[in-house]
């Protein structure tokens, strides 16, 4: 990269959904971050139902949640990049991701999107991605999973 070129990003927040897409986006962002020495924050948000208080001990006890963060760290390490894992409890994933990106002064927010269809055949994008696209102040990358025979 030449001196007068700005890096693509300086600090990226990656949303970990807890599925197979996590490895793909962590690897992708880590490979992009390494040459430009950008920071990576990987966030997993546990949604807390309104029937429970927001500070209820839900995520802390879950081994599965810890595994999601550990795997993201391990994937980043393979690309020789350090990743800062963050676990959040929130009412809505989208709002929590946007808040975290603002809090961390991130200039990039990366999310994965599994290829899914609703009953009836319409492509389903869910609620989180439209929320983030609408509200995040930084750049947003959505990495859609390839269409497989099962998903189509």
């Amino acid at each position: 990269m030449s001196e007068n070129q700005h890096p693509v990003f300086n600090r990226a927040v990656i949303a970990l959904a807890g599925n197979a897409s996590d490895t793909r986006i962590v690897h992708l962002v880590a490979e992009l971050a390494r040459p430009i020495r950008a920071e990576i924050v990987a966030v997993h948000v546990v949604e807390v139902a309104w029937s429970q208080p927001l500070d209820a001990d839900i995520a802390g006890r879950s081994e599965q949640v810890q595994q999601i963060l550990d795997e993201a760290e391990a994937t980043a390490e393979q690309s020789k990049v350090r990743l800062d894992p963050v676990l959040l409890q929130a009412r809505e994933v989208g709002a929590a991701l946007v808040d975290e990106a603002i809090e961390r002064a991130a200039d990039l927010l990366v999310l994965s999107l599994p290829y899914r269809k609703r009953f009836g055949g319409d492509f389903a994008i869910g609620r989180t991605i439209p929320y983030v696209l609408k509200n995040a102040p930084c750049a947003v990358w959505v990495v859609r999973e390839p269409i497989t025979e099962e998903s189509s």
Partner: protein
Amino acid sequence: MFVLVVGGGKVGYYLAKELIESSHEVVLMEKDRARADQIADEIGSIVVAHDGCEGKYLGEAGCARADIVAAVTGDDEDNLVICQMAKHHFDVPRTIARVNNPKNEELFRHLGVDEIISPTRMILGSIEQDIPVHELLHLAALGEGELEIIEAHLQDGSPAIGRTAGELTMPEGCSLFAVVRDGIAKPLLPDMALRVGDKVIAIGPNECSSRLHEQLIGAVDLEATPTG
């Protein structure tokens, strides 16, 4: 404090907004999805887009751990159902209902709603205060609504003129406690003679209104009572 507001109209919206600004935890239930999304865009992800009249959704909105449930929809029937479920099914300590039709107030009280807010009644009270009428003015309801603070504006012809408070026969459970004379509020002492222009403040149960009227204003003139 955790407050569950049901109804995302103007009242619910501003109520939720004010509560959030006062650092309370708030959930707002609004059954109209478009309106719910609009509110969420403006004040954040605190909106549950479901009908608060359904117990299942009240539960999902956290009714069981709410300190207060405020039912402020435009439908009295809905507000009553919401408060009843909150009170009796979810054991919410305090329920507040908006009552649009003043005729429903008694029913709401009877069915155990802790607090009733009637915008119609409030506006009516405010209008009555600004218009010099010979009637009793209902200033405020106390407790669970069984007691009222009432103002009587004494005019020429009032049977109370020239008599002391001690000489008046008050209905049971009703007492006169203050007088506003020449714009100054004073405690109403037993030997104080009442004058034209005095505003006498009384407290008593709802049902003593007509007796109080007889004592302070005079017998109700049935011919002058509007019929339409």
